[in-house]
Each structure stands twice: as structure tokens, then as C-alpha cells.
């Protein structure tokens, strides 16, 4: 812990610089305690408030599916607020037939809402201190949320309205989502969430495809598997779909063990 003496500086700009440097090296709480101590020894005056911008890092993360398509997102780690956000900028392109711009926008919002309902705040990363600091430092819990935002130069998704319908699919270069299936029936929301399993997580499919003979097939109600056979109500993302995020976040918590838990 730094000596309170270092806080006895003459001009506010220098004080701010010193406090900022101390916060980075010693941490917020230690600096606040030091300032409180200095303040207690001062004559009466206004309280000293220590504040700084959140400790936020943004990292580009990528996963490659078993088809060889690579998907990239931004991982935003806010250590101050203990949050993790996966961000994907999307360039939505209107395709096919839409009755109006409002219909197109409603479809896009519906597809995003479907994705959020399966992805957002379903898991958290728990980082537990190890070694001599284990009894001193607290365990840190970081919920994982998602932001799918409109971005003109982002990942392109063509939203196809009306007939003919088709099969929604994603590739590294962009994706296609359809309002209607090839047989003319209305596509179900879980399909859009499944597609964002590729675009936002880089998760591989887990159902049989004769063009991908080595695929790992699952039967545990994964949203990336055949949910028509296993049950749509039970379908969900699994911890394995978030493992790469744990690996990335753990790099920022040296001295901790980080693991994924349901929220």
C-alpha cells in the first residue's frame, strides 16, 4: 500500500496524475483508503472523491466451425463493473419481398430478440483467487451479455422476406435468414437464435450432415443440434459454446481460476 505522503502534492493536476497511476498499480480501494487517511489529517475542507473511468478492455475473438467458417466478434471485459459483453456489428441487407420497411425492421428486431432470449445472461464466468491471496481477494462473477448492433461495415446478414423462402445459413463472409422456409411455412424463432450461435459464438452445428462426415453429434438438447427431434422447448446453448470466452477472460485474471457457470 502506498504511503499517504505521496498524496500531499501541491497542484490538482499532479495529484490527479499520481492518483490515476496509483489506482492502476495499487487498485481503487487502496487509493481510496490512502486518500481517506490523508483527508482525516487535513483541516476541514471538502471531501476528496476518487473516481476514474472503468477498466475496460476490448478484444477481437474468433472461432472456426467444423465447416471451416471463421466468425469474429468483439469481447468487451469491464473489470470495474465485472461484466462481459460479446458485441457483433451487423449490416442487415433487405432481400426478397417485404411489404414495408417497417415489416423488414420488425423482422430484424424479432430475429435479434430470438437470439437475445437464448444467449443473453444465460451464463457467467466465475473467477476464484488462488494461492496466498485466496483468503483475501473476493471471487469475481462476470455475467455474459450480448449486443447485436447495426453497423454498415459489419457482418452482412441478408434478411429474405416473402416467397420463395429458403434455409437460413451462415458463412464467414455473411449469412442469410429467411422469413419463410423453402416449403412456404413460417420460420420459427429458434432458427434465428441457432444462426447467431454461429455468427455470435462461432459454434459448430451438432446434427448430421452428409457433407460433414466427421461432425460431433450431440443429444443433450443443444440449440446447435437437431432441436426438431430433441424438442424445441428444451433447446439451449451449452457451456461448451462459451468455452472460448472463458479462455480469453481468464487471461485478464492472473492468479485466479475462471470457469463457466449458469446464471
Amino acid at each position, binding site marked *: 500500500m502506498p504511503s499517504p505522503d505521496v498524496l500531499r502534492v501541491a497542484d490538482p493536476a499532479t495529484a490527479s496524475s499520481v492518483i490515476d497511476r496509483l489506482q492502476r498499480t495499487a487498485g481503487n480501494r487502496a487509493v481510496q483508503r490512502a486518500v481517506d487517511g490523508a483527508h482525516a489529517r487535513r483541516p476541514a475542507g471538502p471531501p476528496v472523491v476518487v473516481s476514474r473511468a472503468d477498466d475496460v478492455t476490448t478484444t477481437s475473438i474468433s472461432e472456426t466451425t467444423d465447416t471451416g467458417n471463421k466468425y469474429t466478434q468483439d469481447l468487451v471485459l469491464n473489470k470495474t463493473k465485472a461484466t462481459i459483453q460479446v458485441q457483433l456489428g451487423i449490416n442487415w441487407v433487405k432481400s426478397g419481398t417485404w411489404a414495408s420497411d417497417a415489416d423488414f425492421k420488425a423482422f430484424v428486431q424479432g430475429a435479434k430478440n430470438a437470439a437475445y432470449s437464448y444467449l443473453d445472461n444465460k451464463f457467467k464466468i466465475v473467477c476464484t483467487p488462488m494461492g496466498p491471496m485466496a483468503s483475501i481477494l473476493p471471487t469475481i462473477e462476470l455475467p455474459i451479455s450480448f449486443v447485436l448492433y447495426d453497423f454498415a461495415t459489419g457482418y452482412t446478414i441478408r434478411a429474405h422476406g416473402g416467397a420463395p423462402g429458403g*434455409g437460413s445459413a451462415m458463412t464467414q463472409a455473411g449469412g442469410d435468414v429467411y422469413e419463410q422456409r423453402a416449403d412456404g411455412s413460417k420460420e420459427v424463432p429458434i432458427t434465428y437464435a441457432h444462426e447467431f450461435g454461429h455468427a455470435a459464438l462461432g459454434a459448430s452445428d451438432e446434427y448430421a450432415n452428409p457433407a460433414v462426415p466427421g461432425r460431433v453429434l450431440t443429444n443433450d438438447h443443444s440449440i446447435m443440434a437437431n432441436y426438431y427431434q430433441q424438442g424445441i422447448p428444451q433447446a439451449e446453448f451449452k457451456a461448451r459454446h462459451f468455452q472460448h470466452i472463458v479462455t480469453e477472460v481468464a487471461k485478464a485474471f492472473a492468479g485466479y481460476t475462471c470457469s463457466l457457470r449458469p446464471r
Partner: protein
Amino acid sequence: MTTGADLALAYRRGHDMAGYTTLSVQTTGAAEASRSGVGDLDRRTASGMLSPAQRERLAAAVSGADLLHHPGSSRPIGDDEVPILVTVTLGSDRRDLRVWAGDAAADPPFAAFDATVRELVDELLHGLDRA
């Protein structure tokens, strides 16, 4: 251009999520067809002999798409994209072909072949003979 007498075909379009459409035709004209819905549910099958007219339509579609020399898809298949797997035999020539749905749609002769096969599957499943 074949008349269909020396043509054999094995066609399979789809995957477990999209469901499958299949057609198998022997040089004798004996054919088996199937179709399933999403999740590979509600599978229907049919078998029978293609009429001479149906065999000629199929042969014309195979010839039009030049399946024996078709390059197939060279890019990685998309996630959830539907594959079309075809084995065609014409006399002593044989070709195994893999075309992804996106490439098929952008290739009019292959798309016409694909449409013809699916029409024949419909006809077999509905017991139709458009001779």
C-alpha cells in the same frame, strides 16, 4: 445426349435439420424416392419404374448440367447450408459430385437439373406418371 437407357443416378439433397430429398434411379428405370421435413421428420418414400418420358427428362437435365464434367463446389459449405450429393453413371463414366445449395442456385443448368429431380420425386411420391 443420353436417352436415359444407360443412366444411373443417386441424388441426395439436405441434412438432418433441413430434411432430405433423395432419388435413386437404376439403368433399368427402377427408381426410389424419399422426402422428409425439417428435423428429418415425416419421411415419405415411394418406388416404381420411371416412364420413358420421365427417363428422358432426367437424362436431358443431366446432360444440360453436364454433370460428368461439373466442377462441384470448391468453397467451404456454409453452416446450415444444404448440400446436394450426386453420383451419376453414364455407361462406363461415373462422377461423384458435391454442390452446395448456394452454388446450385447460382448455376442455372445445375439448378434446372435440381428442379427436375425434385419434380420427379414429387411425381413418384404422388404416384404420378407424366408419360
